[in-house]
């Protein structure tokens, strides 16, 4: 097998051997691309799944746990549920900060409204290198403007989050976006196929060549050559997202769809395959029926495009006209691109012929790896850092010491001037944090508090993490992050739930 081609789709020689063994033949180019995308870390969690399974994920209020659907669901009583998810968009934001952050917001919003929940809050956990460096300022302003530009246009309030600066993040920012949605428990939608014969209806933006291999890109290590992968970053269209959001919520209210699945990493391939896997079915997709943005696209490009603002609806054939009428009302293009089958295969048809055919389970069951961890020597060195050489402020009799030693008040002013301690109003005043009229406590507090209209309830949400502690001691750092987030919630009067 050509090593260059394998690298392009992100598979190792070992994994290619597994494919040959399980498939009993060589995959063609399209099939190889589909396998590469779904077996990427981004889609398949092949390195992290064994670890993530160790997290506690059950509780009396948990309605849908991690990995089952597009987002987790927690009951808040009175017939309401909260739907929530957090996702990173680090790599795209490092290459193109505005669009990287904007499409990060777009993707997480779709994960929430695909379940029939109205997104009611966005929170962002951001990390940048020191602002004294121009590149970091460009990334910082671009990311904040991207979140502002996308979130404000869609009309979902950005109610909280965190911003922290450290040299570790120079040129390589972290952009984590969390979305919280609210739904009636009896209106929740699932992302799964219902029964053979159901239709797959693609709705939203037309499919272009943008973002092909985005999932593979996101799983790679950033380096000089990734700069050349700029087309792997998608461009967001928040207006289409807003139309999709309203149309999908109207669809959920109508009770018509069997399932709803958003398109994110690995585009149509991942959306159709994941829905089929959950339903225990197969799917047949006719790529000629996918509305295109550009002429001459190959089945490979259509199946793996990561064009934004698209959703896949699974509906009964008799409901097709009613589903179409809702999309037409919102001015959205849609097309029936395939159907659910009973054979457990994903079949791609182009020009009336089968262009590729793979077992759904082959795609959704990548090999998993248990990675061996070992601390870096630099780590161990840092843990031993001797702090005894620092001046002891208690030794300064007055804050206005003139002996030439550091003066306490100067130290205090320098601390207050640190971007990590200073007010983050510069950031959050660029975000609409009030729309939807739920924000009782907004950004700048320990946690945001949102009322739930029509009930006497409110929810408190926060994000937290301390990268420096996690760097020095991952286990303890993570424990402290959980404890701090819990304390944030307690500070606004809520016991932590999820």
């Amino acid at each position, binding site marked *: 097998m050509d090593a260059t081609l394998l690298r392009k789709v992100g598979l190792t020689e070992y994994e290619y051997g597994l494919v040959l063994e399980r498939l009993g033949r060589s995959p063609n180019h399209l099939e190889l691309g589909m396998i590469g995308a779904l077996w990427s870390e981004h889609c398949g969690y092949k390195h992290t799944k064994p670890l993530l399974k160790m997290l506690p994920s059950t509780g009396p209020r948990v309605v849908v746990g991690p990995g089952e659907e597009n987002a987790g669901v927690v009951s808040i009583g009175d017939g309401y549920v909260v739907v929530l998810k957090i996702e990173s968009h680090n790599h795209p934001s490092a290459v193109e900060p505005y669009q990287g952050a904007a499409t990060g917001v777009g993707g997480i919003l779709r994960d929430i409204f695909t379940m029939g929940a109205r997104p009611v809050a966005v929170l962002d956990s951001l990390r940048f290198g020191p602002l004294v460096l121009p590149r970091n300022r460009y990334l910082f302003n671009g990311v904040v403007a991207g979140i502002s530009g996308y979130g404000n*246009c869609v009309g979902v309030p950005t109610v909280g989050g965190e911003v922290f600066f450290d040299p570790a993040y120079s040129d390589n920012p972290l952009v984590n976006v969390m979305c919280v949605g609210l739904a009636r428990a009896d209106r929740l939608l699932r992302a799964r196929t219902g029964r053979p014969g159901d239709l797959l209806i693609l709705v939203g933006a037309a499919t272009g060549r943008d973002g092909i291999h985005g999932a593979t890109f996101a799983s790679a290590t950033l380096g000089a050559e990734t700069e050349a992968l700029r087309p792997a970053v998608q461009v967001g*269209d928040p*207006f289409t997202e807003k*139309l999709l959001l309203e149309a999908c919520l109207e669809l959920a209210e109508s009770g018509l769809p069997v399932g709803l699945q958003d398109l994110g990493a690995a585009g149509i391939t991942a959306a159709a395959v994941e829905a089929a896997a959950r339903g225990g079915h197969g799917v047949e997709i006719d790529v000629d029926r996918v509305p295109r943005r550009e002429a001459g696209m190959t089945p490979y490009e259509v199946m793996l495009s990561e064009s934004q603002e698209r959703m896949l609806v699974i509906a009964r054939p008799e409901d097709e006209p009613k589903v179409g009428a809702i999309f037409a009302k919102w001015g959205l293009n849609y097309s029936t691109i395939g159907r659910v089958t009973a054979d457990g295969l994903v079949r791609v048809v182009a020009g009336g012929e089968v262009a590729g055919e793979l077992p759904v389970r082959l795609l959704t069951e990548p090999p998993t790896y248990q990675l061996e961890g070992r601390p870096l020597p630099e780590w161990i060195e840092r843990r031993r850092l001797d702090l005894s050489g620092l001046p002891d402020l208690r030794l300064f009799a007055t804050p206005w010491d003139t002996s030439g030693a550091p003066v306490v008040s100067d130290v205090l002013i320098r601390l207050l001037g640190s971007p990590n301690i200073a007010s983050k109003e510069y950031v*959050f005043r660029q975000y609409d944090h009030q*729309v939807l*009229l739920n924000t009782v406590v907004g950004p700048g507090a320990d946690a945001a508090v949102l009322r739930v209209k029509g009930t006497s309830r409110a929810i408190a949400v926060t994000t937290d993490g301390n990268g420096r502690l996690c760097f020095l001691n991952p286990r303890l750092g993570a424990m402290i992050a959980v404890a701090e987030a819990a304390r944030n919630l307690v500070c606004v009067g809520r016991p932590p739930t999820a």
Partner: protein
Amino acid sequence: MRFGVVRFPGTWSDLDCFHVLSEVYGQEVRYVWHRETDLSDLDCVILPGGFSYGDYLRPGAIARFSPVMAAVADFAAAGKLVLGICNGFQILCEAGLLPGALLRNNHLQFRCQWVYLRVENVETPFTLSCVQGQVLKIPISHGDGNYFADPETLAELERTGRVVFRYATPAGEVTPEANPNGSLNNIAGIINRAGNVLGMMPHPERASEEVLGSADGRYIWDSIIRWADGRHPA
């Protein structure tokens, strides 16, 4: 009285205006889809905030061509009340129902923050429950709220008392520091010559319940309802 809340594709304060009018005030209210052309059942039309048509091209530039806008023009010509909030104000300017334009904020950033408005004219259907010079705490949330008009138009607006709200300090002083977007003369809201079409950048619907930080927006809703009751005594 009966309110209509217009929904363009991309509008997002529709839910908020509806909530305040129906839940806080118990008024009759219905949504008006942007393709509707019959507003005869309504007494007051709200053009809410949002990003109609994504603000693509220019805020309000595409929405003004929606079928409902011809009906809104007729509705206004008949002397009924039209309130444009934020994107609604931008649409009213683009449609020519109000003079001037809303430019990009002078600092080029979006701003969501509380501001203070000095009420400059209390003889309008939208402010008759206020006292002259009263200061209202109401938030803004926009990227294009920088009011601009040519010198003649501006002079006429000022001379005829058609500047209804001005950005001010909490004490009611109109200063450059109190101006969040570079608007000429700190203008936050204006009214048409006939006195029945008001456009304002701040969001009174976001300041209608104390739990959300201010209830000063109620002065505006109270005024509208009092004015309508005065015209149609029960």
